[in-house]
């Protein structure tokens, strides 16, 4: 019978066991408690396999490690141990080796006679069996031992159930956290990139975010360009001088990742790669993830050396893969925008070239052809007075041609714009337009550089766009408005240049479906520098055109920040 002392002890043990949540600690503690409560020299716990037909794990207490090694493989659950598996009820034996089903002990196994086995159930299902042998003093295990072991096995079942539930919960939590981190990784790039469509800026943001995400020393983005790959962004310690470096598709890890569209983790980067960027930063480990958009490999994110010194983990790989999926969308979008911008730019240039070709033909070439007709006639003539008159006409014709050519050259790229800046160039433009059209034009220019509020001129693209907008607006006024007076204002405030051209002409219906070539040209020119424009007009009420050009260092036309020219 179970005496009061052992009952109390068993209750204490139960509390101790069930309060533990680490499964391995619980199992070890159950074995120790079993020995303590029964006076057994050896205790073991056989954990059943999935089919509950054999032993998957066999934990022991009381057997020294060297004895363990000498015995060899743990039992598989046959013989007497198997009795409890087949019939999960307590089993007490005075001499285990004399049982008809005993297999005998292996070589080097310590001698064991007395035996007590009890099943351990977890939530009503067989989990394993608790085995005790060699009760101290050579006695057999008694009924009290069996009762306390049944009680301990019950506690153990509860504790194991709790620990298993806790472990599962922890795993689910970890899984959830991984999922959340992956989701955060994908949304992080969306937040970071925002509405950004400039490819270089997008790649820079992706490189920085990706590097932080996997805690890498360096992160490099290579994009596929034809039959090669080019380094387009670098974050970390590797220098920006890597930008533009070309890598072959064959024989490089990035090329391999691009082709297979599978990530790679390398413990020894330099030993694997024939063509590697790792040399630049003496990288040791690497994590390479493809950027794939709708099945199209765009490039590779290459992370070098975990900041903690250890290798990149599978979790880092998974995170960077999730991030790369979202990043690829941003890259593809920016590439599309860049291609569209380039196409628009080429179209605009082509139209510009056509316009100059037309102007040269209609003006200069016709003048020269007429001049040739005139001089050819003069050469055939015997009338000296008529020849003199023809020569005089030719000189006038030449003067007109020279003037026209100068106008065309000034239109193409006013020298004043390069040499003196926007204000002087605009003053020259206004003077020429006023002279040829008879318009009264008021000009107000208030730009930071011209007014001494800034030491640096705007990038050439922005100056050019500002000049062209005014020029094209005035051309429209001259051609279509019938105006007598025009007010032109070019004012810089809050990192924006606002161009206003207001005339007193006949105006037009802005709701009319057809947009003149001039307005379309202005719209396209402004789009290239991320600018906008609006037109206010009504029949008989003149027209006001307002264009806004953002002043972002290095942005207009994609020019670098260093393009701004100083005084």
């Amino acid at each position, binding site marked *: 019978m179970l005496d009061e002392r052992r009952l109390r002890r068993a209750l204490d043990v139960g509390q101790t066991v069930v309060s533990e949540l680490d499964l391995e600690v619980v199992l070890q503690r159950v074995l120790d408690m079993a020995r303590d409560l029964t006076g057994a020299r050896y205790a073991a716990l056989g954990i059943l396999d999935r089919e509950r037909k054999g032993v998957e794990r066999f934990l022991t207490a009381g057997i020294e490690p060297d004895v363990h090694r000498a015995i060899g493989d743990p039992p598989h659950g046959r013989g007497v141990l198997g009795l409890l598996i087949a019939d999960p009820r307590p089993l007490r034996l005075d001499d285990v080796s004399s049982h008809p089903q005993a297999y005998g002990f292996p070589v080097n196994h310590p001698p064991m006679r007395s035996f007590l086995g009890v099943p351990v159930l977890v939530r009503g299902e067989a989990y394993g069996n608790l085995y005790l042998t060699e009760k101290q003093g050579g006695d057999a295990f008694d009924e009290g031992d069996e009762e306390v072991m049944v009680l301990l096995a019950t506690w153990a079942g509860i504790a194991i159930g709790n620990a298993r539930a806790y472990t599962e919960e922890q795993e689910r939590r970890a899984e959830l956290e991984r999922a959340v981190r992956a989701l955060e990784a994908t949304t992080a790039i969306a937040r970071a990139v925002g509405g950004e469509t400039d490819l270089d800026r997008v790649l820079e943001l992706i490189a920085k975010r990706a590097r932080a995400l996997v805690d890498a020393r360096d992160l490099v983005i290579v994009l596929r360009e034809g039959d090669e790959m080019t380094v387009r962004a670098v974050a970390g310690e590797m220098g920006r001088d890597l930008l533009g470096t070309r890598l072959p598709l064959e024989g490089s890890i990035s090329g391999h990742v691009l082709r297979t569209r599978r990530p790679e983790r390398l413990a020894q980067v330099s030993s694997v790669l024939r063509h590697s960027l790792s040399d630049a930063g003496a990288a040791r480990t690497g994590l390479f993830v493809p950027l794939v958009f709708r099945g199209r490999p765009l490039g590779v994110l290459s992370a070098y050396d975990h900041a903690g010194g250890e290798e990149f983990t599978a979790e880092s790989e998974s995170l960077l893969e999730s991030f790369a999926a979202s990043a690829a969308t941003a890259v593809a979008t920016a590439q599309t925008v860049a291609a569209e911008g380039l196409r628009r730019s080429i179209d605009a240039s082509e139209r510009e070239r056509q316009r100059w070709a037309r102007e040269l033909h*209609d003006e200069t*070439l016709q003048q020269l*052809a007429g001049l040739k*007709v005139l001089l*050819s*006639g003069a050469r055939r*003539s015997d*009338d000296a007075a008529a020849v003199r008159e*023809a020569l005089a006409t*030719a000189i006038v014709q030449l003067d007109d041609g020279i003037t026209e050519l100068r106008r065309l050259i000034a239109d193409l790229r006013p020298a004043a714009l390069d040499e003196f800046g926007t204000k002087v160039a605009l003053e020259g433009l206004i003077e020429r337009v006023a002279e040829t059209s008879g318009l009264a034009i008021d000009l107000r220019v208030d730009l930071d550089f011209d007014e001494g509020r800034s030491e640096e001129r705007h990038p050439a693209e922005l100056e050019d766009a500002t000049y062209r907008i005014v020029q094209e607006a005035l051309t429209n006024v001259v051609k279509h408005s019938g105006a007598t007076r025009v007010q032109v204002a070019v004012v810089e405030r809050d990192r924006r240049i606002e161009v206003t051209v207001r005339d007193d002409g006949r105006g037009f219906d802005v709701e009319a479906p057809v947009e003149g070539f001039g307005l379309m040209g202005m719209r396209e020119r402004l789009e290239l520098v991320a600018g906008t424009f609006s037109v206010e007009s009504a029949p008989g009420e003149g027209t006001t055109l307002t264009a806004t050009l953002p002043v972002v260092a290095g942005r207009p036309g994609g020019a670098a920040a260093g393009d701004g020219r100083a005084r």
Partner: protein
Amino acid sequence: MRIIVTGASAPVRQGLHLLLSAVDGWHVEQLRDVDHRAGRARLRRADLLVLDLDPWPNGLTPLRRLALGRGTPIVALVTSATEARVRDALRAGAVACLAKERVAEDLVDAIVSATSPHP
């Protein structure tokens, strides 16, 4: 032969006048505006017209109108004698279309050819 040279450019008219007046027996007049009443009267007396079509394609309209008249042959002049422009000029009624830069070499022959009776 009475020849009228007409078109928008005064230097071209002046040069054509000098060039064609050097040919014996050719009487050449300049006409700035073919629509002017006095101009129309002179046109009726002309044996041949030399019409400057520039600035292209402004000269095609008067060319079509003049060609529909009494059948006076018209030699057209253009700055760029591209295939398309020459074709347009001939379809509009010109008997010949020359590039201005070839006028000194080819115009007289073109006029002779245009005014000679066909075999």
